[in-house]
């Protein structure tokens, strides 16, 4: 799992680059908006070269992505993910965004399955259990977990409590709860007390490892 929404903010940029450089293969990536920024600049400051989950498909390390938004409106140029898909090198599983985040949240919350109205009557509902509650039709969706969650926050304290800023929360807090190992990339590590207890966005229990960025890193 790779946290954030899509775009620069809230994305574990350095962890992603480190994973790419590690060279591990056969990765399944779970993300939200994926592979759009490298193609269109989505959510990145204009003066910077965007990085997104497409790097794992460009390098051939990833063979599957589960996400809500893997291709941009344009096809010129093709995104790394669409190219890998066209060439038969990658599976793409497209999940509605609300269903995706709720599936991840459910995995962390001990809920194996839930019903949602989203996707009824669409290709998303194919093969899924349909059920009527109070006269409305719903489909059943199941929890989605991962071996690793790479997430991004503003601050961590030394116990592992995390603080987020602005719209950088997105998928990070839920992903932190849904992986065997959660690794947080943060701008700053502080002592206990350095995060307001009212501002803890991810509890220390969920965080296994913390990586502090180099101060002044130009990469978002």
């Amino acid at each position: 799992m790779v946290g954030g929404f899509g775009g620069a903010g809230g994305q574990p940029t350095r962890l992603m680059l480190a994973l790419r450089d590690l060279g591990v293969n056969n990765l399944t990536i779970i993300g939200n908006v994926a592979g759009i920024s490298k193609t269109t600049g989505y959510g990145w400051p204009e003066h910077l070269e965007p990085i997104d989950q497409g790097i794992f498909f460009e390098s051939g390390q990833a063979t599957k992505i589960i996400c809500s938004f893997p291709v941009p409106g344009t096809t010129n140029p093709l995104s790394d993910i669409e190219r890998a898909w066209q060439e038969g090198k990658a599976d793409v599983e497209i999940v509605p965004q609300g269903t995706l985040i709720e599936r991840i949240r459910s995995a962390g919350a001990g809920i194996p399955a839930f019903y949602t109205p989203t996707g009824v009557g669409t290709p998303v509902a194919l093969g899924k259990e349909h059920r009527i509650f109070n006269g409305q039709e719903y489909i059943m969706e199941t929890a989605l977990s991962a071996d690793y969650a790479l997430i991004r926050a503003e601050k961590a304290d030394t116990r592992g409590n995390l603080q987020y800023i602005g719209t950088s929360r997105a998928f990070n807090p839920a992903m932190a709860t849904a992986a065997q190992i959660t690794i947080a990339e943060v701008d700053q590590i502080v002592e206990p007390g350095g995060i307001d207890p009212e501002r803890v966005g991810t509890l220390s229990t969920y965080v296994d490892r913390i990586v502090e960025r180099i101060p002044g890193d130009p990469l978002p």
Partner: protein
Amino acid sequence: MNSHEKHLDNDPAPRLDRISIAKRAARDLIDGSTVNLGIGIPAMCADYLPAGVELRYHAENGILGFGELAKPNEGDPNLMDAGGKFPKRIKGMAFFDSVESFNLIRGGHIDVTVLGGLQVSKKGDLANWMIPKRGIGSIGGAMDLAASAKRVVIAMEHTTKSGIPKVVNECTFPLTAKNCVSQIITDIAVIDVDKKHGQLILREAAPGWSFEDIQARTDATLVVQSTLRVIT
């Protein structure tokens, strides 16, 4: 070439431009509503609100109560909207995560969403996420919004560039949600969807456009229940 193309050539009057579609859609937005605007024409509604109307803008990525965009190169990557743009920091905003963001949507707390469309059927089915021949598409938050917003308004061109009707009897493109659209606002018409009876009620026409002109460019049968108003 397609039989519908001649309709473009035969247009009785100019079609509305994108700004005019956005203006018309903006006019019905009610002060204080919680609103989610899709990218493209829908997002432009924000610039044409009636005087005195303030909305609570929601974006899927976890923000409520944002407003105008920051100047180029003054945007904060940690203050983004769902379109990947960077709004200004203003008073009364709220930030939250994606779980909360989709609780708001799925729970039916969005008063109005204005979205783009590829096809809308007479039953209010919406297709707006994938052109079949591409074989791959992006859903994002569209299915959640279409399925659960209290009111779904589609702002789009009435036909494709080559004149193929987008208001149809049955959608041939993969659906976003069934029976969800309340109103269609296009460059030639405003159409209410009677979701219960599966029929389309033509309410307004662009200046110089008659019922017959619009029907000729619409796959589904249109009904007129009262005097056709002119879109202003």
